[in-house]
């Protein structure tokens, strides 16, 4: 609804406020008056009226002209379902490349996700006032610099979609990595929110491969949430997870999306990053038992991913898979080559520690675990690494 109002009134602030007031009015009136036959239309009409009132009150010259237009506009309010284009416009605007990533995330969660400023602030461990300011500034920039409120042209779409997907993936990871007893429960809702937004975009752009890929990746990752942290608040790696508690319907949905993209790839559409990551996840989640994991498929997929994204983190993850196929010594050689680029990445040291442990090089393993613990940020992960280190003889 915010989207449609923004289109009509050309101002995110007015749209947001009007929507909030309309909902508040509904909460107040409907219990007493009864729910209207078309609640969507009631909300839209009420919000429109509130917006016009505000524009009149503020006496904006622009607003007066717009208000005049609206008073003569006899179109009935659009049903809420016909807002697909509106929602897309809002998402693309909130994720505009001229906004800092932090701002895009905050704005998207606020305006598209409908989270309160307080909720977003808690989720990202930021003061509420600071988060409020971040959002206010982002809206001010959109207005002052005239960031257009529209779906990008076909030529610009791939890059702009990529920007939106980055925002969603960031939100998802923020939620997914939130583990441990002190975590604010709002952070868990971030994964649900990221998935919901991805579904929304997928519904509007059912042919986009990367949108499908990201949704699949998130679904299959979320499916493993309950198996990921032990009752003692310790991280459980995929190898050790109880696959019986994986959410089979989310996995099935993810697999369906991956299959769809495999068909497209066979027809010549080159898969992007998210699709390949989703395929890797699919191979993992396809195995009922960890011993059934098709590691050579996984290595092949990482090879494909390296072709697109030759980053050291991808190379690291590939090496972990190689260890299962060719043994820890070969893998360690590959991992050590990444030292200059990943020295400050905790997962690099954790990987080395594990490989060294498997090779019986306990002294070096202990040192690597120490480094990993020092760099790791997540309490569940630290607990896990500490235990592994302490188990070394």
């Amino acid at each position: 609804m915010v989207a449609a109002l923004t289109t009509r009134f050309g101002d995110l602030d007015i749209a947001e406020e009007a929507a909030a007031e309309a909902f508040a009015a509904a909460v107040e009136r409907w219990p007493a008056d009864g729910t209207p036959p078309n609640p969507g239309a009631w909300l839209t009409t009420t919000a429109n009226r509130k917006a016009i009132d505000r524009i009149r009150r503020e006496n904006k010259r622009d607003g007066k002209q717009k208000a005049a237009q609206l008073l003569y506009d006899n179109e009935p309010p659009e049903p809420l379902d016909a807002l697909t284009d509106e929602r897309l416009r809002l998402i693309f605007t909130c994720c505009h490349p001229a906004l800092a990533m932090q701002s895009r995330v905050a704005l998207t969660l606020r305006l598209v996700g409908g989270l309160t400023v307080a909720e977003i602030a808690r989720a990202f461990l930021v003061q509420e006032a600071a988060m409020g300011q971040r959002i206010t500034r982002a809206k001010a920039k959109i207005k002052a610099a005239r960031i257009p409120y529209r779906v990008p042209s076909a030529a610009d779409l791939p890059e702009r979609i990529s920007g939106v997907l980055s925002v969603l993936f960031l939100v998802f990871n923020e939620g997914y990595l939130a583990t441990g007893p002190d975590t604010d429960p709002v952070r868990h809702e971030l994964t649900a929110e990221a998935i919901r937004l991805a579904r929304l975009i997928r519904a509007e752009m059912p042919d986009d491969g990367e949108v499908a890929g990201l949704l699949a990746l998130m679904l299959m990752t979320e499916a493993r949430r309950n198996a990921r942290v032990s009752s003692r608040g310790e991280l459980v790696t995929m190898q050790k997870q109880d696959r019986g508690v994986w959410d089979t319907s989310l996995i099935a949905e993810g697999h369906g999306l991956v299959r769809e993209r495999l068909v497209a790839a066979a027809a010549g559409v080159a898969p992007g990053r998210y699709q390949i990551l989703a395929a890797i996840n699919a191979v993992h989640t396809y195995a009922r038992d960890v011993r059934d994991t098709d590691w050579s498929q996984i290595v092949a997929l990482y090879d494909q991913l390296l072709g697109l994204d030759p980053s050291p983190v991808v190379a690291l993850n590939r090496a972990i898979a190689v260890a299962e196929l060719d043994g820890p010594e070969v893998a360690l050689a590959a991992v050590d080559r990444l030292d200059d680029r990943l020295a400050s990445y905790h997962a690099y040291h954790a990987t080395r520690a594990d490989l060294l442990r498997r090779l019986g090089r306990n002294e070096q393993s202990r040192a690597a675990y120490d480094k990993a613990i020092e760099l790791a940020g997540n309490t569940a992960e630290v607990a896990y690494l500490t235990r592994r280190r302490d188990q070394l003889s």
Partner: protein
Amino acid sequence: MQYLVSVINDSDSLATPEEMAAITVFNEGLQAEDHWVFAAGLASPLSATVVDNRGAEVMFTDGPFLESKEYIVGFWIMDAADLDVALKLAEKASKACNRKLEVRPIL
């Protein structure tokens, strides 16, 4: 809407002949598509003078108002319908003059 597109220099080097040629081509494109309002190169910040007449007596100071490694060496004023258009133009401009640019809306 108009945007000030400032060219940022981070060394003492001036535009090379290749860069000048590319800028000329870019400017012709700007004019052809009605985005051109004005453009100019600026003399070195060493030739600047700061004037402050807010107090009782006017003060003249030799040099730029800000001592910094990066400074503005030229600018365009471009007319564009919205930021997307301005950014597209700035993308080409940055490539042409081989410098970092700042795109700022003019009130």
